[in-house]
């Protein structure tokens, strides 16, 4: 039988494919380096990774949600809500910073948990549940902040968004740690494998005796948690909790996930792909600014490059 040969063949192709998404990024980097002398400099690259960190952290959570075949449109609002709660706890209620952060994280997790219960237990479509949550959490945020930004933090709190470890910005450090943890979670733990299983064939997973509802609830809660982490970093970075923060981030995060090769139908994808996808978007934004492309043309260019990137990626997968 020629079966073993076939399998080797396949996985070789797959490696090539994984590589391909990365290649899209590399091509982009090379082109931008040629076009702008500022692009390939250490300060700018640090700049780009710092910029990517907020969206990247959200898109890690989004990857997990999408792996199960779900979607979460509420992340941008959860981000704003958690940021606002944290800021409010510090500025208005005068809480200890770490306690405030804990409460902020809990707030995001809780709303995520609600998403999860509505999707897993009540069996409502994730799209609608999280769309409703997007509106509701935004409302909560505006009510809580009375529509005004909250600001006035001390230096310690600013560390999370604006601090450095050596030359590496703290948001990047946090992002890398989370990337590592989630990579391991997906690759090495039963929980991670169950996410793929649920996305691949939920019924079969249930028949294998796995409590799929619990897993799905956990994923949405985790996603809320990660949105909260982003929200707190953003609040710290901007030195202000903006009630409208994170608007539209859900689409950026989903785009990063799909550019990274994760199927929207669930069941296949990696968080490494996602970070590459997020980097493509961030490098693009940065490059277009450096090239001084005017903002209307930026929209066209950004859409075009995303289309091209996913086209190249799928092309390579088709053969």
């Amino acid at each position: 039988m020629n079966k073993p040969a076939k399998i080797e063949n396949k996985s070789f192709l797959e490696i090539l494919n994984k590589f391909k998404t990365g290649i899209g990024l590399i091509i982009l980097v090379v082109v931008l380096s040629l076009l702008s002398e500022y692009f390939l400099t250490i300060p700018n690259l640090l700049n780009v990774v710092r910029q990517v960190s907020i969206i990247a952290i959200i898109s890690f959570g989004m990857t997990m949600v999408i792996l199960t075949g779900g979607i979460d449109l509420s992340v941008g609002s959860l981000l704003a809500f958690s940021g606002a709660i944290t800021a409010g706890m510090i500025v208005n209620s005068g809480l200890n910073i770490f306690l405030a952060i804990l409460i902020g994280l809990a707030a995001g997790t809780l709303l995520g948990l609600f998403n999860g219960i509505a999707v897993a237990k009540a069996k409502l479509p994730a799209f609608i549940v999280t769309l409703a949550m997007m509106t509701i959490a935004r409302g909560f945020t505006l009510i809580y902040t009375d529509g005004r930004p909250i600001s006035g933090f001390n230096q310690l709190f600013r560390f999370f968004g604006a601090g450095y470890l050596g030359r590496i910005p703290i948001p990047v450090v946090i992002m890398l740690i989370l990337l590592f943890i989630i990579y391991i979670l997906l690759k090495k733990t039963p929980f991670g494998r169950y996410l793929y299983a649920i996305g691949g064939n939920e019924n079969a997973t249930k028949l294998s005796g796995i409590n799929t509802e619990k897993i799905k609830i956990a994923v949405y809660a985790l996603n809320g948690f990660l949105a909260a982490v982003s929200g707190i970093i953003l609040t710290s970075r901007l030195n202000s909790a903006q009630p409208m923060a994170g608007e539209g981030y859900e689409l950026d995060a989903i785009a990063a996930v799909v550019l990274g090769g994760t199927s929207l139908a669930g069941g296949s994808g990696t968080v490494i792909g996602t970070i590459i996808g997020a980097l493509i978007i961030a490098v693009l934004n940065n490059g277009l600014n450096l090239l001084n492309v005017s903002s209307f043309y930026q929209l066209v260019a950004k859409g075009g490059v995303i289309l091209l990137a996913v086209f190249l990626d799928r092309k390579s997968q088709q053969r």
Partner: protein
Amino acid sequence: MGKSSLLEMKGISKLFPGVKALDKVNFSLKKGQVHALLGENGAGKSTLMKVLNGIYQPDDGEILFKGKKVEFQGPAAAQDAGLAIIHQELELIPYLTVAENMYLGREPRKGVFINYQLLHQQTAEILNLLGVEIDPAAKVKDLNIGSQQMVEIAKAVSQSAEILVMDEPTSSLTNQEIEILFKLIERLKKQGIAIVYISHRMEEVFRICDQVTVLRDGNFVGQVATAETDEDQLIKMMVGRTIADRFPTMKFEPGAETLKVENLNVPDLLTDASFSLHKGEILGIAGLMGSGRTELAKALFGVFKETTGNIFFKGEKITIDSPAVAIKNGIYYLSEDRKGEGLILGLSVAENISISVLKKLLYGGTFIKEKAEQDLANEYIADLKIKTPSASQRVENLSGGNQQKVVISKLLSTQPEVVIFDEPTRGIDVGAKREIYDLMQQLVAEGVAVILISSELPEVLNLSNRILVMHEGKIKGELTAAAADQESVMKLATGRRSQKDE
């Protein structure tokens, strides 16, 4: 049903919305017994086993396991108690590996992590035990159906259960793989494991089963020892009447050449296929699983983009680059994958039957004549004896055999001149099988040219006029009906020697 019963199911009833799938069914099983569960499509076999495995809760009746009353709240509870099931429909996760699938929910761990080394080791052991060569680290999506079925079997075996349910495990296995399975069953039996065996293949039942329980329309018909019964009696119990012969006597009057294929190639899948096909004959194609029979059929049907070679239809060279073109030329392909490629489960029986000819059922070239559509469907429902409450029933709710008849109706509605049947009787009960054979007979009589692909060798041998045998994407030889027997076909199929028309 003595004291030593390992399992007793008594008076089990199960109601689905509007369907009584099981009506006070009894079933008992002893340690070390291989017990066949027989019945037509939709008789309730799978449902009974799902009740046993805690997937469905019975509406009535009780289950005694080792003399104690049990109520499994879910598959996990049944697994813990020592029951395992091989599902009729493959229930595997495409992007997980073989090992991950086998131990899904039961992964060996090292702290919070999966112990992959141990996982692969355990998987390899089970696969070795079964004697199949499958890489534990391969993704399931990259395996062919047969190997996937073996993984499903291995998964159940790995649970070291006391009762193992096998729901049509052989429907997509090669003969070789079936032999492996039977050896395994013997071994498990010796270890005292009780097996429930569901199959539509009589010869298998007589070969490995001790006892037979028959269901009909959700009712318990009877239980007999295999040694004390015969095929005819079992068939009578199943369908309520006798079926004279398994195969009809075929009469061929091959006419003019309908199709001539020269050097048909599909990169990596098919090499230089050449043959001809005549009106009023059945051309059987035999081969092991993975030999490229389906690819040959699909290449003819215009599914692949990179096909090369010449196809002559009634002497005229044609280019088939899509199924639409093939159908326009009077060629129709019946897929081996009923759910994946044959049916649109959410649509009704009528909507499925009419889909290929919808454009011929229009008012003013625009609107569907619903009456004509219903009539068309009802005609086939009557002709093919499709068991359905009405033409507007969703296909999803039909049993497997009746679903197959719907796909065949769809094909017939186009009034094709060339029909390619790919595994037309997979998972179909004896009664329905015979009906499908009769239908082929009728097609041939009407001058249709038929290609029959089947892994059930008796089917190919009994129904074909000529037989092509394939191996590794090549046609290895052609045999006439008279010259062909099990042995000569297998020789070619395993690639042992090449010959032409012996």
